């Protein structure tokens, strides 16, 4: 394979200003139970080659399945053909990069999830599925397992040749209760397919889905008769999972440099942030410290090299509340005047070209202690937990989130349950209200498994490290 990729890049020299190629081989397993029965057991194998060329500032990309020389050569020819057929435009430079050479493995320690029997995985899932059915109002119970292994080899006309092998594993449960026109949902440990890490089977086992299942069922049923979340401006405490998505939507996407520069206007949208805002824009309160760290162990956005062969980095994004940096590629970094790429180019598979994507965009912990400590120091407000719905405008300013559960906070204690909680805000104002972040003991990586971007669409997985945090003067109960 190495020889084929190197030969292909030799062939590209002279025809393109730059070219790179990825060979990707992956295996994915998804197992799901629903209402006490096996709902799906699927295994997917895929292998292919994607060739990317740059001609007169435009990128062309062609993908073909398999790993045969003739197919890869045809993909190079097709990539050149489609690029040349487009209107020509001014070329912009690429930021310099030292060609990547070597190998890297991550998430392969521990037990291979594909070596664990289907029976063992189903036993764990069905036990959790059954344990959620604690109330006749629970209409749907679901438990899921996910495992993914991938080997990707990258070469470029710059002389790069590197190989990475990555493994991921995880799962989760969801109970849905219905009554009249209401549906209420409780998930563990996270909504929308659970919690996944770059790890072996031990990560899934440690989730102990069955042990947490009764609470999910009980809370889903209890929410049906809970009072609605009041519509008011108040203090909001978010759990780490919801805060991870808040960070993802209102910070991570907003600082993708391709969006900032207008390259994603037609689909994902733009950003309220401008390149010149770095160093001056007050993104949030002084307690807000955000980094994009592609080196953190276990993160779904962790790697040794990105899909342009740029080394993984820990980029400061917001320091003491002030915008400091962006997620970038070699092209976008050069357009913004940066000397080097932030190493954030990722592709969802062999048949998609890399885009500027989130790595692990993390909010650093503060000194507010545990979640119990944070609640105890809050006189009045609302605590919200586990994302249920999200929406944000195309410049990443005005957002509206809903969570599965909320509880009243009164005199430093959690009180009654609220159903259908939601909150809304405007990004810098919301983050400006951040006045406490829990400490390291509460900090953990949360997975986002369905981050979409690009045309044709690409869904990637990323992680966000957060600890529960408190925000002042937030509009809640808006939906």
């Amino acid at each position, binding site marked *: 394979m190495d020889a084929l990729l190197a030969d292909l890049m030799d062939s590209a020299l002279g025809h393109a200003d730059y070219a790179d190629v990825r060979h990707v081989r992956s295996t994915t397993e998804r197992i799901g139970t629903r209402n006490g029965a096996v709902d799906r057991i699927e295994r997917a194998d895929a292998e292919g080659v994607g060739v990317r060329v740059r001609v007169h500032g*435009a990128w062309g990309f062609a993908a073909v399945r398999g790993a045969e020389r003739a197919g890869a050569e045809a993909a190079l020819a097709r990539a050149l053909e489609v690029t040349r057929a487009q209107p020509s435009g001014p070329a912009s430079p690429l930021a310099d990069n030292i060609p990547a050479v070597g190998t890297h493995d991550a998430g392969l320690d521990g037990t291979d999830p594909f070596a664990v029997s289907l029976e063992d995985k189903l036993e764990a899932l069905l036990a959790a599925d059954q344990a959620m059915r604690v109330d006749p109002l629970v209409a749907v119970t679901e438990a899921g397992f996910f495992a993914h292994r991938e080997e990707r080899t990258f070469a470029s006309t710059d002389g790069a040749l590197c190989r990475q092998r990555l493994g991921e594993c995880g799962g989760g449960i969801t109970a849905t209760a219905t009554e009249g026109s209401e549906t209420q949902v409780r998930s563990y440990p996270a909504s929308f397919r659970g919690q996944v890490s770059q790890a072996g089977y031990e990560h899934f086992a440690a989730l102990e889905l069955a042990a947490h299942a009764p609470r999910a069922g009980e809370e889903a049923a209890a929410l049906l008769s809970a009072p609605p979340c009041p519509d008011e401006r108040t203090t909001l405490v978010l759990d780490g999972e919801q805060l991870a998505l808040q960070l993802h939507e209102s910070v991570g996407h907003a600082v993708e440099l391709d969006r900032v520069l207008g390259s994603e206007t*037609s689909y994902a949208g733009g950003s309220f942030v401008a390149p010149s805002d770095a160093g001056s824009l007050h993104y949030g309160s002084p307690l807000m410290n955000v980094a994009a760290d592609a080196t953190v162990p276990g993160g779904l956005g962790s790697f040794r090299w990105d899909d342009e062969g740029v080394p993984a980095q820990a980029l400061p994004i917001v320091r003491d509340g002030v915008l400091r940096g962006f997620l970038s590629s070699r092209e976008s970094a050069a357009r913004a005047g940066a000397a080097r790429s932030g190493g954030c180019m990722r592709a969802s598979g062999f048949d998609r070209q890399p885009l500027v994507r989130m790595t692990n965009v993390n909010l650093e912990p503060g000194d507010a202690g545990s979640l119990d400590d944070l609640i105890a120091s809050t006189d009045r407000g609302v605590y919200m937990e586990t994302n249920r719905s999200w929406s944000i405008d195309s410049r990443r300013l005005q957002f509206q989130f809903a969570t599965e559960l909320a509880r009243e906070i009164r005199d430093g204690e959690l009180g009654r349950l609220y159903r259908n909680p939601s909150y809304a805000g405007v990004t810098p104002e919301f983050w400006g209200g951040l006045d406490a972040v829990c400490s390291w003991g509460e900090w953990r990586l949360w997975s986002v498994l369905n981050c979409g971007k690009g045309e044709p669409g690409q869904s990637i997985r990323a992680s966000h490290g957060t600890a529960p945090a408190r925000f002042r003067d937030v509009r809640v109960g808006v939906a």
Partner: protein
Amino acid sequence: MRPLEIAERALAAVPAGVEAQATVTAERSLLLRFADSRPTQATAVDDLEVEITVLRDGHAGGAMTNATDADSLTRCSASAVAAAEAAARLPASGPRLALPAAAPARVHDGYDEATAALDPGRGGEALRAAFDAAARFGADAHGIWTAGAVDTAIASTAGVAASDRVTDAFMKVVALAPSGRSGYAAQTAVASKRLDPAAIAARAAGKAMATGTEAKLAPGEHAVVLERHAVAELLTFLASLALNGLAFAEDRSALSGRLGSRVAAARVNLADSPRYPGTLPRAFDAEGVPKAPLALIQDGVARAVVHDSRSAALCAAASTGHALAPGGAPDGPAPTNLVLIGGGAEDESALCRTIERGIYVTRLWYVNAVRPKQTLVTGVTRDGTFLIEDGEITRPLADLRLTDSVLGVLGRVEELSAESALTGTSEFYGRRFATGVMAPALRAGGVRFTA
């Protein structure tokens, strides 16, 4: 090798006596992106997926590969058999699935040879035409031009041996004015020659360059005129939340227990019509069940939801041919050819005429469900929002957040435009599966905006 031959080879790799379906989906596609009236990323895909679904005592297991050699097909088959057997060994519960029997599918006109050629030259010309048209208005063009050809073949031990070929073409332009205002227009068709890049860009640029000081409206309930793009977005959510047979079976649908009841205004007639003129037709669904028209809401009364084999089994009903995956997709079945019948208004301007003060919405962005059983969704207006005053569009309007029930909006429909057009998808996460909603523009009263 033709996809049906590959499907038959895959089926032959399954041990004798085992119930199975082999599905082959072959995609060839080309997508050209542009920004600031310059090409940015072009993507050409040539891939094929073989999916083997095995049933053991009514329990399904599946495996996929994009390799077609004998060893790969044998491994794929073994994985599917192992999965089904593991499911069958467990205590019985849940719906027992059966492979649909063979049934003849009707021919359609959803394939265009010239589009299937995926000529990058045609795409390049489309970009040039769009750039020139936007420039005449003083705007920059952002967007995509794309064409695709997808061959699908299904072979099963129940006797299905079917194949289908479809093409689709799509172009959209988001025009950006120097003021920062934007405008949107798009077309979808079976054949790329039906796209008019200059007209698309001109319509988008005209919106972006609309004159007048941008107005702001406070949150609250407002009369609206929704362009077909916004209507299609709301109908797509209605499909997944309420018209979905699995949600219906599990009492999660707004239509659970309400078939035969009034759920929308009397002038609302919604169907899934796979051969409606101008739509993207298909011969059969992911289980090989032939596509056929199905009335969903008639004169405002809920008539049916869509089913695949799994939701049909749960409801003691028959599949309506809306499976998205063999054995049923995790999220349930979905209509892929929604048609909302138009009304009596000549066009969008006519719809505006009775509105004293209201909002003209070109499209909605980042829509998501808030309370699924109430079809309550939220999303933001984008790329062409205008203030309607005294029956006319008067000036640009700052974007707002719509948070309302889809069925609630349909219940307050006052009029629809006579003309409908296909609003297609362009996102294509995973394998290309082009669908579209044939929708008119409409006027509705009292639509709720929360920001």
